[in-house]
């Protein structure tokens, strides 16, 4: 059998680790962290072009909400709501002031609910239709638009975040974005909007996204698209998203605001009829039931054919949005006690 091993400490006498080695590790790490956070601080609140579209969309919606004096209906969600519901149609058919409060889902549930809190008043009704993937997220989103938005457009929100979340958001900034922020501090770039699918210029007065007509459709997707992973994962983990919604519902109750929930429109896929997806759906339904938040409509009717989608499995064409809104109107009429025209 081989002999016992060599002495470990024998090496110390011949070649040792210098103190400088340990100081080098600690010192360089601290120096880099200090430099990094210094640069983060330097460009906090400096506007960039990257998230201006999301900011303008949100501002228009907040202005529209603020302009309505009496009770109103807010349809809240990400871009599935922005592209998939026609607030104008609902207002005209139910004679009830309505705002399409859909925005970029990448901003996350925490930020979307932060915006809703600014827009609602006692007596209002809110319908939540969060995309399924937003349930899988924490307070902080791993999304370039989200990071840019917080630093460039809403530094007050960033400052109000708890320290761990602040650290997390700061660490999510990419080096090119950090460079751009610092450069804009000294030489601001143009704030001209880049043409894109999300276009604040093409929002109507009710907050509905226009410019998504079927004729301009770029998406040739069909049932072969990769189904929404959060939905097909056979149940969701308890993420902070659930807590955030629960806290929001408590806040609305304290402020005499009614809350309902519904299913976001999504492109139909066979995977959504499997047991795994059904389990996730039952979990979401159970969650809202526990909060005593009624759900309107059904998942089955929220699954729309591929031909009604514009560029992703959540973004509907204008024509698709009309069909989806037609489905929702009877349910909304019920909760608002309104007659349909």
């Amino acid at each position, binding site marked *: *059998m*081989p*002999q*016992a*091993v*060599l*002495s*470990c*400490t*024998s*090496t*110390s006498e*011949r*070649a*040792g*680790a*210098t*103190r*400088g*080695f*340990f*100081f*080098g*590790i*600690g*010192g*360089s*790490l601290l120096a*880099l*962290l200090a430099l*990094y956070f210094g640069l983060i601080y330097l460009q906090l609140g400096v506007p960039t072009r990257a998230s201006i579209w999301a900011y303008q969309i949100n501002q228009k919606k907040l202005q529209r909400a603020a302009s309505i004096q009496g009770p109103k209906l807010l349809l809240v969600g990400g871009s599935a709501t922005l592209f998939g519901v026609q607030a104008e149609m609902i207002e005209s058919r139910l004679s009830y002031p309505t705002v399409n409060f859909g925005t970029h889902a990448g901003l996350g549930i925490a930020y979307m609910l932060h915006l809703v809190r600014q827009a609602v008043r006692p007596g209002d009704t809110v319908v939540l239709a969060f995309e399924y993937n937003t349930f899988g997220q924490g307070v902080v989103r*791993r999304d370039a638009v989200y990071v840019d938005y917080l630093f460039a457009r809403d530094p007050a929100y960033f400052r109000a975040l708890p320290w761990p979340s602040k650290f*997390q958001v700061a*660490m*999510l900034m990419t080096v090119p974005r950090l460079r751009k922020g610092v450069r804009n501090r000294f030489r601001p770039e143009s704030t001209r909007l880049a043409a894109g699918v999300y276009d604040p210029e093409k929002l109507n007065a009710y907050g509905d996204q226009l410019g998504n007509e079927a004729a301009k459709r770029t998406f040739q997707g069909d049932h072969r698209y*990769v189904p929404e992973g959060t939905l097909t994962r056979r149940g969701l983990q308890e993420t902070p998203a659930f807590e955030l919604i629960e806290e929001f519902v408590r806040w609305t109750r304290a402020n005499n605001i009614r809350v309902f929930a519904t299913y976001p429109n999504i492109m139909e896929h066979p995977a959504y009829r499997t047991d795994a997806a059904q389990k996730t759906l039952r979990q979401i339904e159970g969650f809202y039931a526990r909060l005593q938040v009624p759900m309107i409509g059904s998942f089955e009717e929220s699954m729309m054919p591929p031909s009604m989608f514009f560029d992703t499995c959540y973004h509907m064409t204008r024509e698709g949005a009309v069909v989806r809104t037609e489905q929702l109107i009877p349910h909304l009429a019920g909760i608002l006690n309104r007659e349909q025209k």
Partner: protein
Amino acid sequence: MVFSSWPFLLIFLPIALIGFVSIPARYRTARKLWLCAASVVFYAYWKIEYVPLLFFSIGLNYTIAELLTRSANPRRAKTILAFGVSANLLLLGYFKYTNFILEFFDMVVRREFTRLDILLPLAISFFTFTQISYLVDVYRDRNLHYGVLDYTLFVVFFPHLIAGPIVRHWEIIPQYAARELRPQRTDWGVGLALFLFGLYKKRLLADPVSAYANAVYGAANSGQLVSCFDAWLGTTAYALQIYFDFSGYSDMAIGLARMFGIRFPNNFDSPYRAASIIEFWQRWHITLTRFLREYLYYPLGGNRRGPERQAINILITMLLSGLWHGAGWNFILWGGLHGTYLLIAHEWRRFRTERGWEWSHWSYRGICIGVTFVAVLFAWVFFRAPNLTVAANVLSAMVGLQSAPELGRINYPEALQLIVPLLALAFCLPNVQRLLAQYEPVLENISAPTFLRLRLNVVTGIALGIGFFAVIRIHFYAPSSPFLYFNF
């Protein structure tokens, strides 16, 4: 608690280390107890329910070893050993192979047996092998005797508990008895450097490249036909992922042990630079190869009974190696393929020796390295694919038997920008053990030219500090994934 996770880095490791050095070195037993306790906490963090199983296994093996040492009768000793080895294999077999065996019976008798709801206890494959080797060694040398604390610490010591290296008692336990449980500054320095290099391999190299392997194999698993280019790209990405993942893990394990003053055997030696499959297995997962060679291949007869019997022994060893990695036909085929490669390599070696061909030109070695790597890549397909259908899909694409469009979801320039430098790293740069050769990072003597030696000075410290900052940053983009070998 993965070595690369924040709970380990920020809570467990500092507490374990500070607690250890806070105990005066003269209280060696207290230091050992502390390490045992820390290791059990480390194991329990995964799943506390399996802690009793771990202790049952240790208790059983220690008792059997004690019986062996007291057994003067060779036949009785053999019976005790057979019982001990069988008990270990039964335990491993129950947890790891029951459902696989039921699946096999399903296939044979064409009826469906109910599967058992068995969760594989973490590390069972590793602590079972560690203890089998101990029993066999005690059988061979009945004078071997260690105290229960030394033996327990030998099995549960957290740096090797989950995924190796598969250490042997004579390498580790004597270190508890000597001065080695008194780590010095150099031990901390070498340990920290090894640990950080391993961490960087895992978080900065293996995890990012895994995205490309996952994209290709995920598409193949969803029934999509993959193209030839995608199949090669995905399989090369996987080869790099598993290399940097497992060698990173091994570096971390070796580094962690060194922080406590213990040195482990080497587990990796730039395996993709191997010029034959025989050499590959001398460089890849060295401690497993050593175990299989000494406790399976040699007892089967090794090469002592002629070429035919040697071929059978090699095939048996490699098939069981495949089965050890996972209960599935793809793992068995992976082992079988490597066994076949080994047979070919031995035949080729024999053929050359008989003719006196001693080619040592660099170009010949280069060709051999290339051929070996390609052979290993083909075998990795079985290792990575979740089932044989996916393996067939990818292999058909690799040999050009199917045409399919490229996957839209891969950014090819980005993929190549990562894969090509990683290949260069794996093939051209010296490994960490060689860089730190002057500090004797592992039990084996490792040589390296002076110009390649890395000194643990302020410059190295700064470089490692920058790397750690990169790890902190990447943590927020992509959460740490478990080490691949934790599955085995």
